[in-house]
Structures are given as structure tokens and as C-alpha cells.
């Protein structure tokens, strides 16, 4: 780029054709609407993507029956499969409080004792959580099986700390 004529800082304005003008307005509205929807609607509510068991335990009865997400660690040895059904019982913990979860459906393959899980469902007045959807929350460390069996630890964020954010 050698030449830069003065016209580039002193442009002539051009009138938009009618079709383009409508197109511009419509597309800007769509984009702005999308941003507002994402930014204020869903996102604002879900900045807290899930609650921790201790938060849920301290909830007022107003939360009974309301659809919420709870995230925590599946307590080791707590998973019980009801034979011949697709029902599963387990306990979620964040280190401080635990809540019992009754789940019906197919758990994800990564659902495992001692690992993170986010369950979607409702909390009833008997202090029991009912859910039809489990999402597995995996940590940010990746290593082959041999390394894990050898007991190697990578510098990851503690799962329980992830919950307390």
C-alpha cells in the first residue's frame, strides 16, 4: 500500500437502497435480540449454573418442586442400582453437606463414584432429590490409564473447590 488518497478520511456518504436498509435493520435486530436473550435471559439466571448440596440443603421450602440443577461429587459406595429397573440411588456431596438423589434413566458413561456430576430435577419436601437427567462433570486433567494406576497426580483444580466458586 503506497498511495493513500485524502478521500479515505473524507468519504462521500452513500444512500442505502431500500432493500438493503431493511436487511440491515432486520439483521441488527436479530443479532441484538440474540445477544440480549443470551446475555440477560438465560445467562443471567444461570451464571450460577448449578447449586451445591449445602446451598440446596439450606433452601427454603419455596424451592420444593422447582426444577434446579445440583452439582457435586458422587459419594464413593453410595450408588445403588434397583435391579430390573432403570432406577439408581446415590448421594451427592460438596464436602460439607450431602443430598440423596433418586434417578431414573440411563446415566452417562462417565457417571462414576468419586467423580463429579450435575443432576437436573427437583427437591421434594422429604429432602429427597428426584432427577431424570445426570450430566457428568469431568475435571481438566487428562492422563492415560497406566499413569493413573501408577498414582500420578496432575496439577488440577480440586473438584470440591470447583463447586465452591
Amino acid at each position, binding site marked *: 500500500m503506497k498511495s493513500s488518497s485524502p478521500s479515505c478520511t473524507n468519504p462521500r456518504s452513500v444512500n442505502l437502497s431500500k432493500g438493503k436498509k431493511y436487511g440491515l435493520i432486520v439483521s441488527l435486530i436479530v443479532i441484538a435480540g440474540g445477544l440480549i436473550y443470551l446475555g440477560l435471559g438465560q445467562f443471567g439466571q444461570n451464571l450460577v449454573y448449578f447449586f451445591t448440596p449445602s446451598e440446596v440443603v439450606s433452601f427454603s421450602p419455596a424451592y420444593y418442586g422447582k426444577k434446579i440443577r445440583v452439582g457435586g461429587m458422587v459419594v464413593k459406595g453410595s450408588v445403588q442400582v434397583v435391579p430390573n429397573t432403570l432406577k439408581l440411588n446415590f448421594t451427592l456431596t460438596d464436602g460439607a453437606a450431602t443430598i440423596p438423589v433418586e434417578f431414573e434413566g440411563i446415566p452417562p458413561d462417565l457417571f462414576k463414584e468419586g467423580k463429579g456430576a450435575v443432576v437436573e430435577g427437583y427437591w421434594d419436601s422429604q429432602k429427597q432429590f428426584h432427577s431424570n437427567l445426570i450430566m457428568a462433570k469431568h475435571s*481438566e486433567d487428562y492422563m492415560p490409564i497406566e499413569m493413573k494406576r501408577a498414582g500420578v497426580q496432575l496439577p488440577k483444580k480440586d473438584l470440591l473447590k470447583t463447586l465452591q466458586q
Partner: protein
Amino acid sequence: MIRWIRKYEGWFGASGAICIAIGLYFGLVASPPDSYQGEVVRIMYVHVPFASTSMTAYGVLTVASLWYLWKRDPIIDNLAHATAGIGVFFTSGALFTGSIWGKPTWNTWWTWDARLVSFTILLLILIGYLMLRTFIEDKEREARYAAILAIVGAVDLPIVHFSVEWWRTLHQPLSISQRGVAIAGVMLYPLIFMSVGFYLLFTYMVGVRTQMLYLQQLLEAKKGRLLGEVHL
């Protein structure tokens, strides 16, 4: 600048292709499965490069926009425009691969989690940027407005990056952070090769597209389709 791009772009493209080829071999064949996720962890080797390249693309777009507003050099505007076009591809690539990774691991294609939402906002900003450019006919004004939009939109960049550290998300926290590198060596190699390959490929693509936009403008100008004096 165009001459410089013409001269060196081939090297970026070729080395990018080689890096990606090596990365694909390491990622799909040589690397072991993850102890927890199994084979499906291999999606990481394509998802992370897509995502980090698209963030870099937005970073380049921001810098180029600032530079344009400062110097008003039209070729820099072409560069910014090119970066946005390619950024859209990489950003949607990251969203698609992420969605495909999310189904077998998290058990959901999409969820309203801070990382996913802020990243989608990045994509929308880029699409909005390109649309804005289509609808303004005056080249100089188009460039100026677009640059301002890009700079304002850059607010989203740190939000995307740190969303997984600031808020509770389903998305895992950063693997490479101040805490150290939480990826075992054998699994880090394919990731590094793929990432470097993607960065090189991105550079190459930006070079090609910048040329394309420049030439389009040049041709239009020479054919007298541009009103006013040409500022090429």
C-alpha cells in the same frame, strides 16, 4: 503488505498442513485413551485448537481494528475483515466439536453454561460484524463502524477465557493455567502439534482472504464501481 503475503503465505500453509498431519497421527493413532473418558478424549485434539484459534482470531481482529482506527490504512481493514470471516469458521468449528464432545462425556449437546454462552456470543458478534460490513456501502464508514464494533465486542474475550474459573460451569476449568499443565505428556504432544498447525493454517487463511478482499476492492475500484475516489 500484499506482496509480503504473496511471498510467505505458502510457507505458513505448508508447515501448517505438516503440523496438522503429525498432530492427526499422534491424536488418532499414537496417543493413549484417557483413564476416565476413554477414546473420546481424542476430540480434545481438534476441539481445543479450534477454540484457541478462534479466540486468537478475535484478538487479531481487535488489534487490527485498533490499528485501522489509528492509521486508517485500508489494507489493515482488509486484514480485519478477513480475520472475522475466518474467525466465524473457527468459532463455529469449536462450537460443533464441543457439542460433539459434550454428548458422550457430559450427556448433553448443549447447556446454558457460562463458557458455552459467552462463546456463542463471540460467534454472534463476529456474524454481526460481517453483516454490518455487508450493509454499509461507503467503504470508509463501513470500516470505521466495523472496527468500533469489533473493539467493543472484545470485552467478551476475557469473559470467555476466564468463565470456567470465575463461575461454576459444566465445562471443565482451564487445563493449562497458573496451576500448571494438567495434561499428561503423551497427550500434550498431539495437542501442541494440532494447535501450532491450526495457528499456521489460520495465518495462511488470513493471508489468502486478505488478498481476496484487497483484490476484490481493487477490481471494483478499477471498474469504477466505487463512488468517489478510490482509497486503495
